[in-house]
């Protein structure tokens, strides 16, 4: 079985702060991996390694290997823009651009140099269908994205990420700002998207991790405490710390 994402002996420092310690982890294609742990445990930082969003922060230093589709993405000649096309991202707060619904989804195509309007139109529709938003927005494609509800905006952001055909989608607490119904919709969507994408999701919500993921990784103080099948983690965690965290006894 080949692994689409792998890190080996990965260490990350924010200036002097050792944020991630010797993380070895491999993720398979077409699975959902949940990263859980208390705030500040390094799970979001770990997520942002895979599309090099950590580059935007000053003073970040990395040692070890981060491989995406077999390639070390921290090599000198890595094209970051190209990497981010392959590794999409959905953020905690829905952040649609101040454009129309159509243009939001088309944005990624346009910045990647696609001008064929017919192609863009088809791709926008396809992405919206995939993100289960098409039926709700097909009659108002030229309305502002801000007119949508929070949950719809988040699904729009997912459609926006899907449009450029990534193979991996990173999700940083994608439902934490949404109401329970919208959250359930996003979770169903993640389950559907697994067919075609590899998904890594950071979540504070243990039940969410349990519901959507195939594998779960528990981070604590920058260390990977336990990583395994979600079923195993939630029925029979090997580590005492994992057990205490998922049962709500600390963290």
């Amino acid at each position, binding site marked *: 079985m080949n692994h689409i994402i792998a890190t080996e002996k990965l260490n990350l420092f924010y200036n002097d702060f050792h944020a991630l310690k010797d993380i070895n982890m491999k993720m398979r294609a077409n699975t959902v991996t949940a990263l859980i742990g208390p705030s500040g445990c390094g799970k979001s930082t770990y997520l942002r390694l895979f599309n090099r969003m950590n580059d935007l922060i000053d003073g970040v230093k990395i040692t070890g290997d981060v491989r995406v589709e077999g390639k070390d993405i921290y090599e000198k000649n890595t094209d970051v823009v190209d990497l981010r096309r392959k590794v999409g991202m959905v953020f905690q707060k829905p952040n649609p651009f101040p454009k129309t619904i159509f243009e939001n989804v088309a944005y990624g195509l346009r910045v990647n140099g696609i001008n064929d309007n017919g192609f863009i139109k088809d791709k926008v529709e396809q992405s919206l269908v995939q993100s289960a938003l098409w039926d709700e927005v097909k009659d108002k494609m030229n309305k502002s994205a801000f007119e949508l509800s929070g949950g719809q905006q988040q699904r729009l952001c997912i459609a926006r990420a899907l449009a450029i055909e990534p193979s991996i989608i990173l999700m940083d607490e994608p439902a934490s700002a949404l109401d329970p119904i919208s959250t*359930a919709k996003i979770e*169903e969507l993640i*389950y559907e998207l697994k067919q075609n994408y590899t998904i890594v999701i950071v979540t504070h919500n243990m*039940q969410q991790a*349990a*519901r959507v993921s195939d594998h779960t990784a528990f981070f604590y103080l920058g260390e990977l405490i336990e990583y395994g099948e*979600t079923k195993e983690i*939630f029925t029979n965690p090997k580590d005492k710390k994992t057990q205490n965290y998922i049962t709500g006894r600390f963290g």
Partner: protein
Amino acid sequence: MTHLDKESLQLKTDLIGMWNLVISQLNKTHEALINFDKDLAHEVVANEKRVNGHELKIDNDCENLFALFNPVAIDLRFTLAVLKINSNLERTGDMADGIGRFILNGNGPFDEELLKVTQVIHMYDEASSMLVDILMAFEHENTKIARSIFKRDEILNQININSIQVVADYIRTHPDNIEQALFVLSIIRKLERVGDHCKNIAEEIIFYIEAKVLKHASKKQKAE
């Protein structure tokens, strides 16, 4: 269909598989009893392992469903019901296994007259048709069928109560066949237990669909 719906459906399918296996186990012992077919009885005993395997798998699936989906309301009642129906089915399977072992240990075809006077065959028919009907109630979420089980269990109970006198009478007239008579009495006891399991399963089905707890309720209450 949501992810949870899919998982629940899978669980339901697995439980129905278990159910059919147990029904076939019981039917095989029925046949083995009539024909004194030791091979068939042997098959039943061997198959008991499969029943146990099924039980463990469904238990495990229920555990995962609880852990991963935190089901509530009907989903919660469904999962709880599956868990309990599962253990009732496993015990029913044990009954079939026990009967199979009696047949294996027997030293010749059972006396037709003994089978007739004790009504054990009738009991067999009733028990396995109850098991089939209650499966139907589960599959189609039909509480009416489930409720009908309570009355039918009384038939089994009556046969069971009568059996002591019947077997005693038989032994008096056939003092040379005491062993077989006691075997049949044990089988009757076991079939009576099968009826009780069906009743428990019916209660679980009603609990899951209507959220009513019928355990330890009076007969009148159950009929409502």
